[in-house]
């Protein structure tokens, strides 16, 4: 589960820290207390920045770092495709062996394939991605029922 790529991102996170954004969300994983505050800045259809601050396990923190590396600079359509692919991989319960096509989309994020075998940790890996989806929807003025989620 702890691939070197994950440990690298954990020890040397990309783009960490909060910078100006169009929307901010705070998401919590109530089962373990992982938390993330995440901001999205858009310029038309382009993601100019995803900034974040959080605390949590290596999986949740590394995942946010990978997200930043993958999504910043992308068009929204491409970013959504990456997010959906990552979600599919994480919900696969270890049954998806990433192929070349998936690896091309997910880059470093394929390292999380092993995490999908651990139901208790899938939420850690998805925390920042769900926060990004939520923040993007808010930045675009779409309604969302996931805002201001509170811990149980």
């Amino acid at each position, binding site marked *: 589960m*702890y691939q070197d790529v994950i440990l690298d991102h954990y020890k040397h996170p990309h783009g960490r820290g909060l910078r100006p954004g169009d929307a901010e969300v705070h998401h919590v994983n109530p*089962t*373990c*207390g*992982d938390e993330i505050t995440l901001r999205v800045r858009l310029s038309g259809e382009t993601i100019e920045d995803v900034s974040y601050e959080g*605390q949590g*396990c*290596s999986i949740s923190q590394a995942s946010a770092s990978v997200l930043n590396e993958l999504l910043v600079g992308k068009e929204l359509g491409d970013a959504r495709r990456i997010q959906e692919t990552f979600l599919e991989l994480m919900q696969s319960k270890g049954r998806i062996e990433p192929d070349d096509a998936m690896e091309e989309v997910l880059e470093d994020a394929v390292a999380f394939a092993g995490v999908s075998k*651990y139901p208790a940790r899938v939420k850690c890996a998805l925390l920042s991605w769900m926060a990004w989806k939520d923040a993007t929807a808010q930045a675009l003025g779409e309604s969302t029922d996931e805002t201001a989620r509170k*811990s149980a």
Partner: protein
Amino acid sequence: MTHIPGLLDTEAIRKDFPILDRVVHDGKKLVYLDNAATSQKPRQVLDVLAEYYERHNANVHRGVHVLAEEATALYEGARDKIAAFVNAPSRDEVIFTKNASESLNLVANMLGLADEPYRVDHDTEIVITEMEHHSNIVPWQLLAQRTGAKLKWFGLTDDGRLDLSNIEEIITEKTKVVSFVLVSNILGTVNPVEAIVRRAQEVGALVVIDASQAAPHMPLDVQSLQADFVAFTGHKMCGPDGIGVLWGRQELLEDLPPFLGGGEMIETVSMHSSTYAPAPHKFEAGTPPIAQAVGLGAAVDYLTSIGMEKIARHEHAITQYAIQRLQEVPGLKLIGPTTAEDRGAAISFTLGDIHPHDVGQVLDEQGIAVRVGHHCARPVCLRYGIPATTRASFYLYSTPGEVDALVEGLEHVRNFFG
């Protein structure tokens, strides 16, 4: 290994627990240190459960056939055993619930529905503590929200104990009920019952004690506690899950109204109104967890045959050893009392900046089962400014060798994330 006085014959005891022989993750011997979450079950309990379903299964208090009578006798016999186990003055004071949470919710709801002098309403106050399990926080928050009562609590000292310095301002003439945990599931602290009960009695407040982490580990005597209600759960004390206990003083159980309505809890029913059965049945609506109660009775027999004093002494010795060994691990910080005095066998800690989830996962890879997270006591984590802890918790079958395995495992964790 150095000789540690007070230990039980764990080699013999462990033979009673088939699951402790399991190997996990390709040949790693299971080291089960998550006993505060749930205990393992001895063969003696598993056999009784199987025998109940294979030979005696029927609904209780209803049929006149032989199985119904046997099932009823076993179910009510379990009540006798629990009553003796906690030294209850009367067997009718033992209410079966599904867990400690339900027991505590039952008390909170009874007090919200009660007439004077027990009624909790907008002019009254409820007192809890900052070290409660969520199951002894949320029911009182709900009651306070519904009734307008004020919820107050004791804070914690830096060394993981209750701060009772302002007890006279916290428990006042307005206080109707004081509910607190006897042994903390996250800090391990054993709380000073007498001081709290004395003050509660001065102002005429009812006392509710959450004994979930006490009943499995030490002699529990509801009469010497002088509480009005005591709640605990079966699965943490070698019993099956799905069975909990609420002990309550008889006169209170007579006076207080039922919460759940249904079969079993009635005397007569017409379409206009009903009258209720006497306690404990008044509080046991519907078919109860019969096999689970019988299983808990067997668990109590098992624990009694070993001796609760001896179990407490064993755990004290293990706790002392574990605290000493854990403090040798660089970067490890205990969250809770740092000595074994007035302390149970649940030991929480942080390990440098390594998140508890990562600690738990890498320990698991070595076959060591601990609990990570906020342990359903998030206010404690907030109080000490930490997101979560790793918790190792011991029981009657835990050995010094398992403590050593944990310490070695933590060294591995440090190297992995260091």
